[in-house]
């Protein structure tokens, strides 16, 4: 009975509002953090940092951004990548053009610019509903990409339009090694992840869900719909903007506008569908899935199916499996992997007293 909650009485509302109500969950979380910050950097290798862990973390963050907007506030978006691009290119320019601006601050400012852009493209959502919001986000997707391709100023007049990462100096530390980039990403993602958990449990989070579930009723009980929706766009795009900067600077080290095309937006949408809409944990599960699944498939194919299936067929097959999983999740488990995880821990809580739950 590892997962015992007997003896843990919650006597204060404040204690009840904690991120993890159960002691085991708290301990588990601290252990996870400790191993992510200490054990993994010590043991991991380049491949794990550069090809798995960093993209996993960045995509989780991007998932959080979209999840605020779609999973919590119910506004469908296919423009996530646009806001990532705004974040990345703004941060690059802040860093380039403002002498002596610390690296972290330029990333933060990049996020703020992305947030403001989000507000602008969110304005139509005050008047239109449902998929129609999609049009506004698609407009953002195509417009932003066009701006960064067409105006060379944004890429410091490099003939190819590609921006390269500035030196990763944080408080005098050189973090350009794979492990350093991993730690930097991890720190930012952990901080923003904890903040995200606060946001969705605050009044703002409740208002988002209220607008999502029944906007008329939300208006009737006095929730300011315009402010709620615009904050969803702003905060969502802020997170996406930071994710974009990390994608460009700590993951790839370079990025071109095409790297933030509509396929990236789809990818992020899939993360939240598979991981779980309206869940912070879900973003991590979804991102892990989306990063690991193709890698696993291709390793398996290289190892076991040599000659049986060439890489092209494998990738097609993978695409089919992906599509099926999306549909499967929508049918069987609309709340994604996060919900499966929750059911699992719920069962663990009552284990071995099977009949105790409801």
């Amino acid at each position, binding site marked *: 009975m590892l997962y015992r909650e007997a003896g843990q009485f919650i006597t204060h509302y404040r204690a009840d509002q904690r991120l993890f109500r159960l002691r085991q969950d708290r301990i588990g979380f601290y252990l996870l953090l400790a191993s992510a910050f200490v054990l993994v950097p010590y043991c991991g290798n380049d491949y794990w940092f550069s090809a798995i862990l960093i993209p996993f973390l960045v995509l989780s963050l991007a998932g959080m951004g979209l999840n605020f907007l779609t999973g919590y506030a119910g506004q469908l978006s296919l423009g996530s990548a646009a806001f990532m691009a705004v974040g990345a290119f703004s941060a690059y320019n802040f860093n380039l053009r403002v002498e002596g601006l610390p690296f972290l601050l330029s990333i933060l400012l990049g996020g703020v610019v992305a947030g403001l852009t989000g507000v602008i493209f969110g304005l139509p959502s005050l008047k*239109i509903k449902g998929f129609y919001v999609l049009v506004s986000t698609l*407009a953002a997707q195509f417009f932003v990409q066009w701006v960064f391709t*067409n105006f060379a100023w944004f890429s410091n007049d490099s003939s190819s339009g590609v921006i390269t990462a500035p030196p990763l100096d944080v408080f005098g530390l050189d973090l350009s090694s794979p492990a350093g980039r991993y730690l930097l990403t991890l720190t930012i993602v952990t901080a923003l992840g904890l903040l995200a958990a606060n946001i969705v449990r605050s009044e703002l989070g409740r208002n988002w869900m209220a607008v999502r579930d029944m906007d008329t009723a939300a208006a009737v009980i006095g929730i300011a719909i315009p402010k709620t929706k615009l904050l969803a766009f702003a905060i969502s795009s802020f997170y996406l903007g930071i994710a974009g900067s990390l994608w460009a600077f700590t993951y790839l080290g370079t990025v071109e506008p095409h790297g933030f095309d*509509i396929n990236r937006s*789809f990818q992020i949408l899939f993360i939240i569908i598979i991981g779980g809409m309206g869940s912070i944990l879900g973003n991590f599960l979804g991102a892990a899935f989306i990063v690991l699944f193709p890698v696993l498939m291709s390793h398996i194919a290289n190892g076991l199916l040599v000659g049986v299936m060439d890489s092209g067929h494998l990738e*097609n097959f993978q695409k089919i499996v992906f599509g099926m999983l999306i549909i499967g999740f*929508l049918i069987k488990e609309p709340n994604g992997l996060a919900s499966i995880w929750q059911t699992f821990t719920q069962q663990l809580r009552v284990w071995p007293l099977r009949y105790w739950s409801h």
Partner: protein
Amino acid sequence: MSFFFEVLVGGLLAGVMYSLVAIGFVLIYKASGVFNFAQGSMVLFSALTFVSLLERSYPFWLAFVLTLLIMLVLAWVIERWVLRKLVNRSPITLFMATLGLSYIIEGLAQSLWGAQVHGLDLGINDEPFEVLGLLLSQFDLFASAVAGSLVIILSLFFNKTRTGIALRAVADDPLAALAVGINLQRLWLIVWGVAGFVGLVAGLLWGARLGVQFSLSLVVLKALPVLIIGGFTSITGCIVGGLIIGASEKLAEIFIGPYLGGGIENWFPYVLAMLFLLVRPAGLFGERQIERV
């Protein structure tokens, strides 16, 4: 001035091609309330199947019929394994399911028929001739004629046949339609089948112009603004919306583009559609819903 008209006419004709894709959307949306993102993949799939059969030296008509049958099977599978399981779910969920569907169809198309580019010759000349100083091509005229006849056939179908009338009933009120004994599943199958047919026609015309290849599925992105402007529920709206988008994006590219650095065609339709939405939230021909609480 003649240049202006040349661009205008060119744009209108390009718009007809967008309309062809948009019609498939409207059919499905009307009958099952699904915004079918996979329509683009269906266009790709059907064109690829057709051209691959042609290359395996099937005669034109047989390839057409076989492709149509395959599209019907596809519709059956979609109805049986996707739509039926998602009855009564939110439109957004259904939309996302069609995203998944588009992945499956694209993967399937490429693993069945390979990824190379196929040329497709429908035997219609695309060389220009001038009428009153305006440049026209046979192919464009043919495409417009096809689009026109599709609209006529479909409106006859919706207004005159039993199935068509039942379909409209379903669109208006699915519960009531069920109550009077309309077989919803059969109707959905028919609609997805018809949408597959429209997809095939669009695929052939687009394929003849672009070559049959992966990027055919991207035409879906051009159809969306057309739908917004025309309204999701009107076939006439598709045509009008297509013409508006086609003409305005070409005019904008030529007359506004140079001031902005060019290449504005990709986002211009969306901005236009957005402005339209703010003025007419249900599109030009769409039906406005009253919210009941």
